[in-house]
């Protein structure tokens, strides 16, 4: 990058900049450092069973964060994702209790998610309403709908299909749940979509410079609509994963799903301003939070430190993003 050769008011970037390296290396480095520390300070951190646990604990937020990443890449934000997932668990849980048709119940729950995504996407893309406001509104709507459907109760799910994602197979001494496999599959899929298809490039372009995207002929509205629908589909899948992990559809669950997923995305190096970041950073960000929670428990440290450290990481990530953007302007 020998760009600094041209004179003029705009300077090129310094050859080595922590700012520009952060999005790819930063999160991995943090994950590595935490893992190293916990491996030394506790005896059980590196045990296969414990590592498998950390991944299992990341599955729900990890899946929510995929949708959140796509939305944040377009320059939006989703405050309703956790609520949508909870609604799907309740719908599936209640239907399967009433009708005893697990496949159809699950499908119906996912279709409801997509329908909500469609509404959200239409309001944002066609009416141009701010994503923050639209999803804030839907957070309320969906939460209330969930409570109305649940009627104050929780629905224990015993069905094999609905809780299938919680089953595990053995891989080199570690239990790997099918939910983990599903999540990794989704990451691979979205990684492919983002890096190998025009759709993915358009997502970045829209978040990066929406006007430019429109001027070069990208159908911005349709792309945004597709992102919100696809993200909602992922939230539906997250509901399936949630039922596998805790076979109990509880209207009070996942209240922090929105903030947890934003945290993971931001720690993963994706810019809240849109257009920058990558999906593997998000997975790393999710794992960082889980590693912290697990490692601090193993070390017997007050759990409040987890929130404290996570908060510092979030601010550091955003600060680095801001600095790197300022440099490159």
């Amino acid at each position: 990058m020998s760009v600094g050769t041209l004179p003029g008011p705009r300077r090129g970037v310094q050859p080595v900049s922590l700012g520009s390296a952060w999005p790819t290396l930063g999160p991995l480095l943090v994950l590595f450092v935490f893992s190293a520390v916990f491996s030394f300070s506790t005896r059980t951190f590196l045990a296969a069973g414990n590592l498998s646990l950390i991944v299992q604990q990341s599955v729900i937020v990890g899946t929510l964060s995929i949708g959140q990443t796509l939305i944040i890449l377009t320059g939006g934000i989703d405050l309703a994702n956790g609520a949508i997932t909870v609604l799907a668990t309740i719908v599936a849980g209640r239907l399967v209790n009433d009708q005893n048709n697990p496949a159809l119940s699950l499908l119906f729950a996912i279709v409801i998610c997509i329908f909500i995504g469609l509404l959200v996407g239409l309001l944002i893309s066609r009416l141009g309403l701010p994503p923050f406001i639209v999803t804030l509104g839907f957070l309320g709507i969906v939460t209330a709908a969930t409570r109305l459907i649940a009627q104050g109760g929780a629905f224990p799910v015993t069905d094999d299909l609905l809780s299938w994602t919680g089953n595990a197979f053995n891989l080199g001494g570690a239990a790997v749940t099918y939910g983990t496999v599903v999540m990794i599959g989704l990451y691979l899929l979205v990684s492919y979509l983002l890096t190998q298809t025009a759709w993915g490039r358009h997502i970045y372009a829209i978040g990066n410079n929406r006007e430019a995207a429109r001027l070069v002929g990208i159908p911005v509205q349709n792309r945004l609509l597709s992102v919100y629908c696809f993200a909602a589909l992922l939230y539906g899948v997250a509901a399936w994963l949630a039922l596998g992990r805790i076979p109990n559809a509880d209207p009070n669950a996942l209240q922090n799903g929105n903030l947890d997923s934003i945290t993971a995305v931001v720690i993963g190096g994706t810019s809240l301003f849109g257009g920058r970041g990558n999906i593997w950073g998000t997975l790393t960000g999710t794992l960082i939070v889980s590693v912290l929670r697990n490692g601090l428990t193993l070390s017997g440290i007050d759990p409040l430190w987890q929130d404290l450290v996570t908060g510092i990481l979030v601010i550091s990530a955003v600060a680095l993003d801001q600095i790197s953007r300022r440099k490159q302007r």
Partner: protein
Amino acid sequence: MHPPLLTHNGVSLSTNLFTQQAKCCSKRFLGIRNKNKGLLLAPLFLAALIGMCSQARAADQTIIGLVTKTEVNPYFVKLRQAATAEAEKHGAKLIPRFGKFDGDNEGQVAAIENLISAGAKGILITPNNSTGVLGAVKKARDKGILVIALDTATDPLDAVDATLATDNFEAGVKQGEYARKTLGNKTPKLAMLDGTPGGTVDTLRHNGFLKGFGIKEGDPAIVGKQITHGAQDEGQTAMENLLSAHPDINVVYTINEPAAEGAYAAIKAAGKTNDIVLTSIDGGRLGVEYVKGGKIAATVMQFPKIMATRGVDYVVDYAKDGKKPTGFINTGSQLITDKPFPDLPSKDTKWGLENCWG
């Protein structure tokens, strides 16, 4: 915070100073030139430090896990402090964990799993929801870990080894009986400020109250029900709305004292403090003081300290001789009021303040 934790923080702070140099070295090692940017890496190292200076020295110590619902409710804070003190007394190490909000099953499950990994001998848990955490609890018990439910029973009861709890239904009955008696011959117009819909404790208290009050769910005497999540602000809003809809309310059930405090503010603003019997349940210090100050007519006290200390004792015994407690162990509840009725056993607020949990 309680003393042992302070010591712990003290240690980490002094170590922090000691390792400043190490931090600088690592910065150079990582090839970060810019000073300002390097500073941004500091939190990362701080976090690493926190990990380093708290080696799990637990090889020979009995580890006891405590998983509470949240850390915002003082009830659970007191429970934790009592457990920590009791564990220390026995030379055991207590690792406290908690959910982030009422209903955070995922957080509680993760906490149990991590405690299993940490090698806990016993886990004391106040489950969010009587069914939500059973999978993780079973995993723990399969590993030979003694699991005791505190404060909230699981469904089924034998999902855990033993349950140390207030019989919340019984406590609700006491609250309901008192409310009914205070009301005398007046036609009851009951407002119910519930906690979180679907919560086990909430349901038991609610139903117990109705039984003690002598009515059934759906009775026309119940003029309104609202969800407060046991929070003061929500309690106040709920009561304000109920009062404006039904100015003739003359008796109020509240899920806990913060909700009661909120309700009292609304009642006071409406100028109805003399017309309404406000009752609550829980028995925190503030709650007893509300009773003493006349804000609440009566509250039903429970004894979380007993749950905590006995829970810890059971785990310590189990570690020693493998003896497990079983079944539901009622830690009791006590009606606290300064306006007693001879046929309802109660204690006054003086006793209450001496025996309350915080």
